[in-house]
């Protein structure tokens, strides 16, 4: 079995090809250029370097969110176009769960955090048991303080990774009451290899979708929808400050 994978959910653009035995290629860029300009040329480089016939791929795995809305759509539209043209299924892999797979079999809890602005992080809490990823808390958008409180209550060591680390490192150091560590550079950002690896598990569990069905999971509604919902609540005489929308508070 062979999986092609894409991740353009954050600053990193990453493309990989993974089969049952090995990671055949992984190309990761963490630079300013837009994903629109990098993602497909990176795939092209992999195809040429590994003499890959795209027709031999079984499925396309894509980091399906959360992440930058535009970044997610570039990855998603690229995956959908490839799926349509190659007549292959897609596998939507939760971005944060894939990041946790960078730290396979690390003891304790694994907590990827992505800076979600508005003082929130996109995160989830994971653990490996006998080499299998277990979801302790599903991915969510949550205030960093709330996340730390949650982790402190679990009395287990935590490994953090993700682009939220440099943003919230001080707060983590000051308020974490359980042992914690930060993943090193080669493991602390999105990697398409991890998306492919987790995607392969999903594929074997039958968790695929058609290219037409696939859409990103943003974990947040758009600002316009949020503001409109607040206005509607206000009109109805309710307190708009208690508004919650999917992902705003969990």
């Amino acid at each position, binding site marked *: 079995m062979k999986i092609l994978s894409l991740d353009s959910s954050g600053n990193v653009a990453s493309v990989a090809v993974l089969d049952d035995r090995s990671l055949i290629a992984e190309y990761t860029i963490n630079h300013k250029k*837009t994903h*629109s*300009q*990098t*993602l*497909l*040329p990176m*795939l*092209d480089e992999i195809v040429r370097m590994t003499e890959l016939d*795209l027709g031999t791929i079984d499925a396309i795995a894509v980091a399906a969110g959360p992440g930058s*809305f*535009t970044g997610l*759509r*570039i990855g*998603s*539209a*690229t*995956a*959908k*176009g*490839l*799926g*349509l*043209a*190659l007549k292959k299924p897609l596998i939507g892999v939760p971005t944060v769960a894939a990041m946790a797979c960078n730290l396979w079999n690390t003891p304790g809890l694994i907590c990827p955090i992505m800076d979600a602005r508005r003082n929130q992080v996109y995160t989830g809490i994971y653990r490996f048991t006998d080499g299998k990823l277990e979801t302790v808390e599903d991915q969510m958008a949550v205030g960093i303080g709330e996340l730390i409180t949650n982790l402190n209550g679990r009395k287990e060591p935590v490994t953090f990774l993700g682009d939220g680390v440099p943003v919230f490192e001080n707060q983590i150091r000051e308020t974490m009451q359980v042992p914690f560590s930060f993943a090193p550079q080669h493991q602390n950002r999105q990697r398409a290899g991890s998306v492919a690896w987790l995607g392969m598990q999903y594929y074997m569990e039958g968790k695929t979708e058609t*290219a*037409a069905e696939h*859409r*990103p999971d*943003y974990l947040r509604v*758009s*600002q*316009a*929808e949020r503001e*409109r919902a607040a206005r509607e609540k206000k009109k109805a005489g309710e307190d708009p400050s208690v508004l919650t929308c999917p992902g705003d508070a969990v």
Partner: protein
Amino acid sequence: MNDTLILAIESSCDETAASVVKNGREVLSNVISSQIELHTLYGGVVPEIASRKHIEKINQVIEQALSDAGCTLDDLSAIGVTYGPGLVGALLVGVAEAKAIAYAKKLPLVGVHHIEGHVSANYIENPDLEPPFLCLIVSGGHTHLVIVKDYGEFEILGRTRDDAAGEAFDKVARAIGLGYPGGPKVDRLAKEGNPEAIVFPKGKLGDNPYDFSFSGVKSAVLNYLNHAQMTGEEINRADLAASFQKSVVDVLVEHTMLAAQDYGMKKIAIAGGVASNGALRSAMEQACREHGYRFYRPSPILCTDNAAMIGCAAYYEYRKGTRHGWDLNAIPNLRLGER
């Protein structure tokens, strides 16, 4: 000679569209998934919502376009896609999708300027139309008066200094409570009104006789409304719509006729969303008849954002050898004639 089949994709604003065009002018399919109802709730296009809808619909729209045309990706010669101008997030969906399909099928990729597409809509229903001709492009985002010197080659004579013509329609429509989208609603209401009832100023600019300005007339309408409200005067909305529309249409037609005379152009075309405005179509047609010019305008379905026009423009670019790389990016403020 083999037929050239192009699959075109358009997602620059709030329509997700795909089309298969044969040899540039024969439209085999033209699928448009409109989001207008969704954006009506917000009184205008919300970019993030538009982008989300594009990604949900794009594969279905493309598959429908292929099946309506009775062809598969294997029959195609190239993929055309709008890469600007427009909403960047919306454009990116079409661009990423088009690049991936072209890459996987080893097909040439042709990026198309959205406005070049609008101009090209005129070729589809007028087999005899060929450059050079004069074209007035009017939409919610653009107001350009150009000479189409050759396929894909433009000399811009005039442009708006402030609001686009369609933007002025939208703003006035909002002010008189018609809602979004404003153009068709003003057009409809104006039919019941007297265009001579109120005299609004016509935007005139000294230095370039072909440029446009619509913020003046828009402000005049808003002032008129404010004044009426303060004095408790009853407003006839139909008269107001008709008078505003006349003021805009008169300027569009006058500048076009002036340019036609100055540059000796005998063929006049209109393009863009506002080109489906009834008053503009009949006023331009009449002016052309009086001057002995040939007048071309696309059917309303080809005035709105669609992919058939992109397929047509892509065909002429393809024939000229235009090819884009896998690093093609969306360019929200792409200028006409630039690539």
